[in-house]
Every structure is written in structure tokens, then in C-alpha cells.
């Protein structure tokens, strides 16, 4: 790195050099990005350094998704770098996706020079204004002397409290200007003091409620995964003998094959999880936010005789959609650990007779076998593909998905035993994330099996990344559940729009196997149920190669159970009822 002494003999670094140095200080391994005019100075320094690898994506949206998945699948932080104007606007979908799921992420964007800001300059946009509602925080750095401190703050804000994406917008002249570089050792902000310990009195109260419960239920969300609180959750659930459900974002936060696990709740949750959510007398919500896709209609969900304990790092998540009786604000891992300590110290046990009666009811609900589907020897059932993938990988793969029916089948039929293995866009529901997510996951976990369960519509929203996978030898397995429909849209049209399939049929699809081959990968088209297992085995054996498996599946299969929009948790449509 070039170091030019100034008149006082102190080494001066350019803004671009400082950017690279800050990333090195934060021990960043990968930067996902795409160059352009406003970031050329930064890219010149990226060229000269060897502290981190840069991954050149084919579209800025994919850079953000890949960095996001890198964060989700590890306890490290994803970083992406895009240019001003269209570079940034292309990144917005990725930023909003990460924001909705509280994923820590750093986005560095180039900006036109400070003197040109507001002049409608070439590739200018109001980056801070455009991204303000979909970041945890953002900065426009107008003075090179503020750059290092801003990076320190950005990493701190992104990773503490309720995590989220933080954007740093840097005008081109700031990357050219120079000053002395010193990376701050720590950061204090009078306006931002995240975390804090859960209130001990409230934790005691919660523990007592859980001990006194006749029908306890534990509902865990993405906060458990993000805060690495799985071990504490498992311990608490075992102590209480209570049933547990994990949301779409919480899958893997509790072992999916455990006897106390009831599956996922919500719109496409299991019968038993939804019934138990509704009928319990004490509900412990941990790192979850009573989302509309989880509890359905809040007024139907409300029960006067049910007590709710809510543990979350974000006070604004508490009593937002559902009034709670015992709010506890704090890091979920710390709160659960303290709660376990309180229970142990009390020497008390939950009411065994009541639990036995509660589990008898739950077993009745489980006997409905709500995830059963009609097997077929003629046509490939999408659920069958996911089940086979689960069997062959022993539940140990990292699975990314896109959005729609395939996402729900992946969530229902792949029983995640470990946290950070299930990577999907839960909050924003962004089609197109699957492939770039798989890239980020594979780079964070180079030796792991990474599969992207997708559909023929979603995959086409970021399919250009097959090229990135080729360049960086990213051997992910693409499981394309190809039903030639926008399946979830088609399902809603079948149920609620009188079978009028407006624009949900996908015509003129490419031959995906050939397309994958054109990008230099291996592609296979599978049309018969008998060939599913063999194809999956072949793909999994090819450790060095990306394999694109195009499964031609049943066109009209629906996702069950289903709670129609605006309905309550016990108003599920089950497959058997149709």
C-alpha cells in the first residue's frame, strides 16, 4: 500500500485506501460487488490488496443477497460494494430483504463527488434517501477524516442489538482525498446503547408462569438463530417438557427431529403447531414477532385466558400486533440462560399430570398427519424430492430457497436439526434470492453441501449468477422444482379466484439443463419419480461441480395445510378435506 508522507511527516492514506484498511481491520474475508465510475478509486485499492477476496457478481442485487447469506450461514458479517446510481438501486431489493430479516450486513456504495451532489449528475441518486426506510442506519461520508470512525460505527451498529444492514455512501472525491488513518479501537454513541440485560423480576415471573402452566407452548423465531441461542432454547424446552414450534425464520433453532418439536406454525404450518399455539395457556415467544403469516388474524388469535411471555431484543416488536403479559427485553440467549438458572434454583418441576394430558391432546393433533401427500409413480411430487434430499444429506446440508410453494415444501419436509442451515427470505419474500444465497453460503462454508431449492420462476430472477458460480468454482446443487406455474400464485387463484389463472403460467421456459451446461456446469432434467434419487445422488457426489437438477414436477400440487388470509390458526385447510 502506498503511503505518502505529508508536510508534517505523518503517513497519509487516501479515502480508498482507508476503505480497504477498515475492511481488513474488521477481518472481512469476502467482498461481494460490482465496479463502476464512483467506486473506481476503491476498486484500484481492492486490486492492490490481499486481505480479502472480491467476488464479482453479475448484478448488484446478487451481491447483497450473497453477502446477506454469508452473514446468515456464519457468525461473520457480509460486505458488499456497489457503485452510485443504478448500482445502488439494483442493490435495494437485497438491502430490504436483509432488513426485514434483521441480518447484519455492510453495504458500501459509491456516490458522485460532493460538489456534484444535488446536480442530477451522471449516475447520481439520493442513496441515503432511497435506502433510509430499509436499513438499520446509513451514512453519507462527506469528509475523508470521518471515514474510519464511520466504518467502526457501521460494523458496531450492524452487529449489535437487533442486527440489520448498514450502508456507507462515499462520494468519489472523498475516496481520493487523504488524511492520517487510525482505526478506532472502540465506539461509544450516546444515542445508541443496544442490548441490556433482561429484567430479572420479569424473568422470575415468566419462569413461575411456565411452571404453573397446564398447557405451555414455546414459539421460537429467527432471533434464536441470530443470537446463537439454540443450545439454551433446547435446554429450557427439555426442562419444561413443553412442545415447541419454530417459525420459518427459526427453523433449525430447535432440532427438527426432536420429539418435543411440533414443526412450523402459521399459514403453512403444521396442524399440531397451530392448534397448540391457539390452545395453550402459557405461550413463551422467543425472538419472534407474531407476524401475520404466523398467527393469522390477531383478533382470532387473542384468548383472554392465555398468558403470553415475549422475549425480544427489540422493544418495538413487543405488543406490536399482540398484547403480551410479561414482556422481557434483552438478548434472547442471556434471557433464556437466566431463566434456566431461575428454574434450576427454584427446585420446582412443571406439573407432570397436566403435561401428560396436554401431550395426549397434541398427539391426537399429530395423528392427523397433516403433511401427508398422495405419492405417485407417474409424476414427480415436489415434496418427494425434498424428502429424498433430506434423507440423502442426513439433514446436514445448507438449504437455500427462493419464494413460493417450493420454499414452503422445503421448510416443511427438510427437518433442520441445526441453526443457520436454512437460508431464505422470510420477511420480504424476495424471489430470486436462492442462487445468490447459495453462493454466499458456500463461500462461508466451503466444505459443506449447499443446495438451493427453487422453482422455474424464481431461479430466473437471478439466473445470471450461474456465471459467477463458474468463475469462482462454487459447486452448489440447484434443485429446480419445475411445475411451469408460479405455483403459489396459481394455488391462490385456484382457492380464491375461481380458477382464473391470470399470468401464473410460465410459457417459453428454457431447457435449464442445457442452460446450465452453457454456463459450464452440469445439467440434468428429471421427469420420472424413479429417477429422483439417482439424480440427487449423482449431484451430491459431484463435490467440485455445480449441478442443476431440473425436476419436472406435478403441475397442480398445492401446499397444505393452509390458513387463508385473514383467518385464524384453527381455520386451516387440510389436504384430506379436499
Amino acid at each position: 500500500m502506498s503511503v505518502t508522507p505529508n508536510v508534517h511527516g505523518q503517513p497519509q492514506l487516501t479515502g480508498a485506501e482507508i476503505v480497504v484498511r477498515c475492511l481488513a481491520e474488521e477481518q472481512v474475508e469476502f467482498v461481494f460487488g460490482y465496479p463502476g465510475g464512483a467506486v473506481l478509486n476503491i476498486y484500484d485499492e481492492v486490486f492492490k490488496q490481499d486481505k480479502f477476496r472480491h467476488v464479482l457478481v453479475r448484478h448488484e442485487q446478487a451481491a447483497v443477497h450473497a453477502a446477506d447469506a454469508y452473514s446468515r450461514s456464519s457468525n461473520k458479517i457480509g460486505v458488499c460494494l456497489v457503485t452510485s446510481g443504478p448500482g445502488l438501486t439494483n442493490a435495494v431489493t437485497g438491502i430490504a430483504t436483509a432488513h426485514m430479516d434483521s441480518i447484519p450486513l455492510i453495504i458500501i456504495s459509491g456516490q458522485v463527488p460532493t460538489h456534484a451532489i444535488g446536480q442530477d449528475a451522471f449516475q447520481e441518486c439520493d442513496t441515503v434517501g432511497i435506502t433510509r426506510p430499509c436499513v438499520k442506519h446509513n451514512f453519507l461520508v462527506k469528509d475523508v477524516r470521518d471515514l474510519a470512525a464511520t466504518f467502526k460505527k457501521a460494523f458496531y451498529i450492524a452487529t449489535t442489538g437487533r442486527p440489520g444492514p448498514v450502508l456507507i455512501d462515499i462520494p468519489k472525491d472523498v475516496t481520493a482525498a487523504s488524511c492520517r488513518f487510525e482505526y478506532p479501537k472502540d465506539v461509544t454513541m450516546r444515542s445508541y446503547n443496544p442490548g441490556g440485560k433482561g429484567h430479572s423480576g420479569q424473568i422470575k415471573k415468566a419462569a413461575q408462569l411456565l411452571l404453573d402452566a397446564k398447557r405451555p407452548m414455546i414459539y421460537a423465531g429467527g432471533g434464536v438463530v441470530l443470537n446463537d441461542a439454540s443450545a439454551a432454547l433446547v435446554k429450557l424446552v427439555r426442562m419444561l417438557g413443553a412442545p415447541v414450534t419454530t417459525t420459518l425464520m427459526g427453523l433449525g433453532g430447535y432440532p427438527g427431529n426432536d420429539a418435543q418439536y411440533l414443526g412450523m406454525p402459521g399459514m403453512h404450518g403444521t396442524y399440531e403447531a397451530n392448534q397448540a399455539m391457539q390452545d395453550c395457556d402459557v405461550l413463551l415467544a422467543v425472538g419472534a414477532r407474531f407476524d401475520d403469516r404466523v398467527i393469522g388474524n390477531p383478533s382470532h388469535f387473542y384468548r383472554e385466558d392465555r398468558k403470553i411471555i415475549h422475549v425480544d431484543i427489540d422493544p418495538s416488536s413487543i405488543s406490536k400486533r399482540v398484547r403480551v403479559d410479561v414482556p422481557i427485553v434483552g438478548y434472547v440467549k442471556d434471557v433464556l440462560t437466566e431463566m434456566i438458572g431461575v428454574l434450576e434454583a427454584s427446585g420446582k418441576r412443571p406439573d407432570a399430570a397436566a403435561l401428560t394430558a396436554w401431550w395426549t391432546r397434541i398427539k391426537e393433533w399429530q395423528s392427523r398427519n397433516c403433511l401427508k401427500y398422495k405419492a405417485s409413480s407417474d409424476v414427480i411430487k415436489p415434496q418427494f424430492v425434498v424428502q429424498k434430499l433430506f434423507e440423502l444429506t442426513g439433514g446436514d446440508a445448507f438449504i437455500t430457497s427462493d419464494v413460493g410453494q417450493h420454499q414452503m415444501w422445503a421448510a416443511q419436509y427438510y427437518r433442520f436439526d441445526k441453526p443457520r442451515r436454512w437460508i431464505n427470505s422470510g420477511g420480504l419474500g424476495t424471489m430470486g434470492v436462492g442462487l445468490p444465497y447459495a453462493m454466499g453460503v458456500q463461500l462461508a462454508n466451503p466444505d459443506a453441501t449447499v443446495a438451493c431449492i427453487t422453482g422455474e420462476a424464481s431461479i430466473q430472477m437471478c439466473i445470471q449468477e450461474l456465471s459467477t458460480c463458474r468463475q469462482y468454482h462454487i459447486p452448489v446443487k440447484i434443485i429446480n422444482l419445475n411445475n411451469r406455474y408460479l405455483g403459489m400464485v396459481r394455488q391462490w387463484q385456484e382457492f380464491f379466484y375461481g380458477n382464473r389463472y391470470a399470468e401464473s403460467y410460465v410459457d417459453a421456459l428454457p431447457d435449464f439443463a442445457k442452460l446450465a451446461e452453457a454456463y459450464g456446469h452440469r445439467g440434468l432434467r428429471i421427469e420420472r419419480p424413479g429417477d429422483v434419487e439417482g439424480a440427487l445422488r449423482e449431484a451430491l457426489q459431484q463435490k467440485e461441480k455445480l449441478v442443476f437438477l431440473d425436476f419436472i414436477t406435478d403441475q397442480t400440487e398445492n401446499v397444505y395445510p393452509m390458513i387463508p388470509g385473514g383467518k385464524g390458526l384453527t381455520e386451516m385447510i387440510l389436504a384430506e378435506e379436499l
Partner: protein
Amino acid sequence: MRHILSILIENEPGALSRVVGLFSARGYNIDSLSVATTEDTTMSRMTIVTHGSDEVIEQITKQLNKLIEVIKVVDLTDGNHIERELMLVKVRAAGKDRDEMKRMADIFRGRILDVTDRSYTVELTGDSDKLDAFIAAIEPGVILETVRTGASGIGRGERILKI
């Protein structure tokens, strides 16, 4: 219910738009907003008058606290407080209206800041109800122009909002 929120916020570019953006993005109401720096110029103090159910006000307070640059949020209507707003009103004051306008300004303890042969500009301070009352008390036809600052509020007695 009407609430008056006092907010201490970092005096940074864009900080105001984060607050305003939050209200519009989440569908909350702003009845008035006033803001200026405090004696410590690194900080601004904002007074927002809003209305909503207890649940909505609780969410507004929590969401404001979540903004990185917000230092403190207090709902002044939780306790005793003083509220003042300033209004400038330009009224027609010619012929028979002239004496009447002077009398009305006196009744409301207003001050006439500017005089022409056809108009007065009256300065009034008070809580928002008082200013509303003045507007209601005078003939609508004589009002040429009004401008209001929005309410500023402060707690009574020992109630202090400071870091």
C-alpha cells in the same frame, strides 16, 4: 388522544427526515412538529404533536427510540407540562374593523408587530387551543394570512429532559 412527544436527537444532516420518514412509513400522524438546536448545538430538540390510541403512541415512542440518532423520547402528556405555540396573523384592519382588531389582540394578550393603514400583523403565543380560539373569535373574512410554529413543550417543575 392527543400526545406531545419531546425528542432529543443528534444534530446531524438527515436526522429530521428519519423521524418524518418513520411517521409516514408506519402511517402515524403528525399534527405539528417544531425543531431547533438546544444549548448544546450537537443536539436538536423536537416537539411532535400527534394523536392515536395508547397502542399506537407506545409504538411511535418505541420506533422513535429505535432510530440510531434519537437520544431520548419523552411523552410530555404523561405528566404536568407547559405547551406554547407562536402564531403570526395578518388581518384586515380598516374602518370599523380597526378598533375591533386592536381590542381582540389585547383580549388574547397579542402584540401588534406591524401596522399599515389597511392591516395589522398580530403575534400571539399560547397553547394551541388558545390560538385556535383567537382564530375562531375573529371574523374569518378579515384573516389575510396565518403562520404557526407548532407547539413546543417542556415538563413542569423538576421534570427535565436532558442527557
